[in-house]
């Protein structure tokens, strides 16, 4: 709890809590819709990992950027995406962020600095470094955070990108969310080190592993990495140890995983943890309840918005392919 710790006051916690609850409620609703077959496709739930995304994004400015993953709802909400347009996207509606073309795995809100969730594991890492390069190129002081999972760090593009980012001192933070699993595969079965952050040594950059269930801990670790990046000193790896409450995707019973995993995770629930801290700080329970109620209402509104929005027009299926000469480029 070194420098910056003083910033995590009641005000800060109210915001952190709000964002975490917003993620949890959004996904609870989405999962419910999915189970009832109101939603098509597949959703990957972030539940349990909220402190990682929120702690990280609270260390960022509005003008900073993130890239995300298949498990992207939490990152997007943490960075400020609107739940109505997100829910509409999950419903494949024309009013969704991507006009129904992308779905759950592809939420983007460029205005908010959300450069995109991504269906390709590790697919966003190099894009994030490109964003960081753009900041450096333009002389802006914005920083980009690349969110990705423990398993994603086994992709070659992780290695290539971190090497270039380190060499070129790009303003980027590599944020590894280590929930110990890639789908069913426990990370230590497919790697040879205790942490993923230790890989930072291969690029001569800082690498830390922190408790990802504590929003304040994440905030401080990322703040340090962001400050370093903003100063022009280059990238860092921050690894947050988190728990994925659900199976890999909504509906996966996760039988491949010991029961203790979930029990342990729930015992460290990031929202409970934050709430306890807030009560201890003297924030009134009623104030917290009011947040809960406000978010519940927001999410219900998002759901109604999504449900009542129109589908895209099938005749417009070729729209948005090309920014110029679209019809000619698509038709032949």
């Amino acid at each position, binding site marked *: 709890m070194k420098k910056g710790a003083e910033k995590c006051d009641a005000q800060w916690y109210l915001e952190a809590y709000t964002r975490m609850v917003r993620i949890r409620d959004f996904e609870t609703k989405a999962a419910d819709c999915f189970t009832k077959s109101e939603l098509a496709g597949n959703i990957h739930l972030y539940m349990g990992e909220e402190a990682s995304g929120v702690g990280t994004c609270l260390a960022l400015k509005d003008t900073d950027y993130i890239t995300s993953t298949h498990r992207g709802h939490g990152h997007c909400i943490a960075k400020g995406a609107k739940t109505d347009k997100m829910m509409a996207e999950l419903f494949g509606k024309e009013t969704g962020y991507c006009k129904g*073309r992308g*779905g759950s795995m592809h939420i983007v809100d460029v205005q908010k600095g959300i450069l995109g969730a991504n269906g390709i594991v590790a697919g966003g890492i190099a894009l994030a470094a490109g964003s960081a390069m753009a900041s450096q190129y333009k002389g802006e002081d914005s920083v980009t955070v690349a969110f990705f999972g423990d398993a994603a760090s086994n992709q070659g593009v992780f290695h290539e990108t971190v090497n270039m980012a380190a060499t070129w001192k790009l303003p980027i933070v590599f944020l590894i969310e280590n929930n110990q699993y*890639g789908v069913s*595969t426990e990370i230590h079965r497919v*790697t040879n080190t205790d942490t993923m952050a230790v890989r930072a040594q291969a690029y001569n950059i800082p690498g830390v592993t922190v408790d990802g269930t504590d929003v304040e801990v994440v905030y401080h670790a990322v703040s340090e990495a962001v400050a370093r990046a903003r100063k022009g000193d280059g990238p860092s790896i921050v690894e947050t140890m988190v728990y994925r409450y659900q199976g890999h995707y909504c509906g996966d019973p996760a039988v491949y995983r010991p029961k203790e995993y979930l029990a342990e995770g729930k015992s460290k629930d990031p929202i409970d943890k934050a709430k306890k801290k807030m009560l201890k700080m003297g924030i009134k329970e009623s104030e917290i309840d009011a947040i809960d109620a406000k978010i519940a209402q927001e999410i219900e509104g998002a759901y109604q918005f999504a449900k009542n929005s129109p589908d895209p027009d099938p005749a417009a*299926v070729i729209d948005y*392919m090309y920014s110029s000469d679209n019809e000619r480029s698509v038709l032949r």
Partner: protein
Amino acid sequence: MKTSISKAIGQALHEEMVRDENVFILGEDMGVMGNVFGITRGFRDEFGAKRVIDTPISESGFTGIAVGAAMRGLRPVVEWMYDDFITVCLDPVMNQAAKLRYMTGGQITIPVVFRAPIGAGRRNAGQHSQCLEALFTHIPGLKVVCPSTAADAKGLLKAAIRDDDPVVFLEHKLLYAKQEEIPDGEYIIPLGKADVKRPGKDVTIITWSRQVYFALEAAQTLAAEGIDAEVLDLRTLVPLDWDAVRESVCKTHNVVIVEEGVKRGGVGAELSAQITEDLFDELDAPVGRVAGMNVVSPFSPVLEDAEFPHPEDIVAGVKKTLGR
């Protein structure tokens, strides 16, 4: 006995692993989980972690490892979780496995199978819905198999595993659960043999994989309108069963090629060009194509359904070709 295609694939893998201890399987979540579609459930307990390998998410590395192991005489069956991820592991396939036999003057054989699910219709959006068989058929050195039935999937996969060349084996996700009769006991279906799924005399519908079912549905609709369509399931794209294509075309004199994947540069383009080149005088009408649009697979169900061929599109395509 009725079996799902995913089970039939599992049977083929199982039988070949029992038969030949050089056969092993590797990929993401094949072991402890038994594959995301349940295809290899129980395999790890039976054959051990040595022959049922859970890999990290390192497609390029583990595909290359399989190719190297095949160079040393093992017979790996690689699984990519979706064919869309060929983008992160094309080199060991295209520049290594497909080329090394030729480039070494035949010194090296590479008996590897690359399995992957393909296809749209599950609302998985653009990065998880592609049919990329055209990409593979354009790479000399690969054989390419796209089964449509449980029986074919089993027999062809066994043939693929026994083949000494690299074989890309593409399984449509939306066929996995289909329950179908398969023969008892051991059998093999040789690569490169097409199958007439429905004989007909007015038009030949050439297709493969899931579109075989849509073509059969379309044929039924067409039959009601007095059009007798022959449905030819290619099953293997390389090597191509040209004899079967020629025979059917010479009978019906009208051809429509149906393909789920992107039309521009699809397999249908090549087939159309070959048929036109070699059987021009047999044709009563230009070879028609019904294929996926030249767009990214959209998430929205209404858009996705508009994007790739459905039976009614095939009906319309056939009628257009026949001028009806």
